[in-house]
């Protein structure tokens, strides 16, 4: 015998009933209610905490049971078995396992799956998107942070000619645009927009001076263009933002906005290493030494050491480590390269 409340599904009237199992049937008996149904036709709600459970009948009527232990013993005499999600939710071991698994999966997704998927996605986006984003970015920056270049026209042309004559590791020559700007705020810097357009600042050209080393910096930037790193970063930060909003947004919209920026710095370090490797391969292909990029990095590090902004190196991994890696690549080349 199990006490329950019976609702007919047509009004809010409560009827006290007793439930029992007789063979394959469920027997419902109480004030002006008396019937039996095959247990196979009864849908039993899963257990959710200590909420009353319902035994639903096909006509929309149901019985509400509060004594969950008594219901369990009644159900044990029938063919009913709790669902697997239902059991998972209630077992301490599985709950603890879930915490560990959530943390591990989130970390793996962030560290490997997301960069991989974003890189794939960046290569499949229509080129128009990168173009539009770049035009917009340049419109925003020009006149505010980026000023016209003061480098002589002939020097711009000769650097541009050398840049466009570079042989890419995968064959062909760069189809990226090369733009000259100056910026007191950004200092000695060069960067690549989502469509592959490379912007080089006067401050970088003057602090490096040597044309071969400047080509080495361009080789590094072409690595960003080749890998479509701008679009990849955009996709990655959108995905992280979306996940974070779903996870924490219910509780606080203030918190939801914060982390995208923190995540960016870590991602761009991996991308810098990729761009260094591509740059080294490009230099070797053009008969130049990867050590040129290491030399350029050294000069940039020196030019930034006195000022408060990190400029070109702020989002980059340890410069010493990068230089060591590049010099190793250079040492592995035949001595004909300088």
């Amino acid at each position, binding site marked *: 015998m199990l006490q329950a*409340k019976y*609702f*007919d*599904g*047509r*009004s*809010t*009237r*409560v009827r006290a009933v007793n439930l029992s199992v007789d063979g394959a049937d469920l027997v419902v008996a109480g004030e002006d209610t008396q019937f039996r149904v095959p247990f196979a036709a009864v849908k039993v709600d899963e257990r*959710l*905490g*200590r*909420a*009353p459970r*319902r035994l639903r009948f096909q006509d*929309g*009527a*149901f019985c*509400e049971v509060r004594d969950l232990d008594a219901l369990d013993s009644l159900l044990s005499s029938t063919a009913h078995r709790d669902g697997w*999600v239902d059991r*998972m*939710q*209630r*077992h301490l071991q*599985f*709950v603890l396992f*879930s*915490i560990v*698994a*959530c943390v591990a*999966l*989130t970390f793996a*997704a962030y560290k490997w799956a997301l960069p991989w998927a974003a890189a794939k996605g960046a290569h499949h986006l229509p080129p128009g*998107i990168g173009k*539009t*984003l770049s035009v*917009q970015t340049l419109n925003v920056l020009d006149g505010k942070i980026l000023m016209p270049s003061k480098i002589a026209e002939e020097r711009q042309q000769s650097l541009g000619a050398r840049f466009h004559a570079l042989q890419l590791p995968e064959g062909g020559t760069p189809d990226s645009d090369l733009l000259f700007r100056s910026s007191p705020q950004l200092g000695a810097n060069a960067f690549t927009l989502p469509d592959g357009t490379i912007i080089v600042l006067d401050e970088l050209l003057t602090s490096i001076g040597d044309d071969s080393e400047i080509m080495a910096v361009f080789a590094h930037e072409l690595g960003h263009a080749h890998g479509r790193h701008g679009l990849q970063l955009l996709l990655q930060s*959108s995905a992280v933002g979306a996940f974070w909003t779903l*996870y*924490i947004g*219910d*509780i*606080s919209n*203030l*918190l939801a906005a914060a982390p995208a920026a923190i995540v960016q710095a870590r991602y761009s370090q991996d991308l810098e290493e990729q761009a260094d490797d591509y740059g080294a391969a490009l230099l070797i292909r053009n008969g130049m030494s990867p050590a040129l990029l290491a030399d350029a990095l050294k000069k940039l590090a020196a030019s930034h050491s006195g000022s*408060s902004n990190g400029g070109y190196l702020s989002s980059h991994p340890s410069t010493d480590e990068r230089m060591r890696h590049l010099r190793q690549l250079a040492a592995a080349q035949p001595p004909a390269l300088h």
Partner: protein
Amino acid sequence: MDKVSGSESPSRAAAPLAPEQLYFTGSGAEYFGIWIVNLLLTIVTLGIYSAWAKVRRLQYFYRHTELAGSGFDFHGSPGRILFGRAIALVMLIAYNYSVRLHSPVTIVILIGIAIVMPWLLRNSLRFRLYNTSWRGTRFHFRGTVAGSYRVFLLNGFLTLITLYVMAPFMHQRLKAYQHDNSWFGRTRCSFHARAGQFYAIYLLLLAAVVVFAIVIGFSGIGGALAALSQVQKHGGHADPHAVFRALAILYGALILMGMTVGPVFHAFVTNLIWSNTRLGEHRIECKMSAPGLVWISVSNFVLVVLTLGLFIPWAMVRLAKFQLESVRLLPASDLQEFLAAEPETLGAVGEEAATAFDFDISL
């Protein structure tokens, strides 16, 4: 209000019925198990399980909410919620795309979203209410499509062009559309709050924001003065620590404002809305304490941050308990007398699109 024939109680006027308080009986520890399994399965299935997770979450909260000894229930099907989420995702991507890319397509997409939104929001209300029941009797939303365009599109537009002077009026019209068109079985709800009452609360909100702005202004000026005195002492550059301190005070004051003014406003508006809503001839009374809600919001925020999110289930349960238990139903007659309406079927598309755009207009 329709009644079961012959069940009218003759002694109703003589013996007033006792108020029925809403109770929430869920616990954070219990809900944690459901929440973490939901999260894990959602991650493993790349988000597909989130529809099933949503059903479990709502069922947990509805079934632990009790009125007069009986729980509520949620009946939405995960398949429809998943379909709704897919459509919401497409709209969200289109929206983000069009906001970032300024091209002629942007305007077309934004106009398209504006045109379908009222329809989706109306469907969302229908889906949510139709799938909510108490004692086996379902709720219904019967607002018209024309009404949803008037409330969401026309009034929204008027609010914008009057620089939000009409926002309280718009809020009142929205709640009237929502509550006047809500039914429990064959019993209709009604909404009685006037726009003037909304204006009073909005003016209070405005006053609080102005006071905070003055305080923030002073603390910002104080910080700047501190930074300047550092410059005079050391000469040359401003001390970065002093600048950082000034910024920290500013940001801290902004967070404090968000966490105090927001909940106080929410408590006042919720009390106004629900205390002026009736179910048939039954009255509802909502007395949510504003300081209480501030305390819950601030402590939830701090604990969620400190536990990197693991406190979320407890935070949700605390908030639900606090909000729900501030509501009482003042019955005018026996609560056994509601009758169910004819069955209907609806899609979840509207509801999912609405929540994805953060337009949650339910309590």
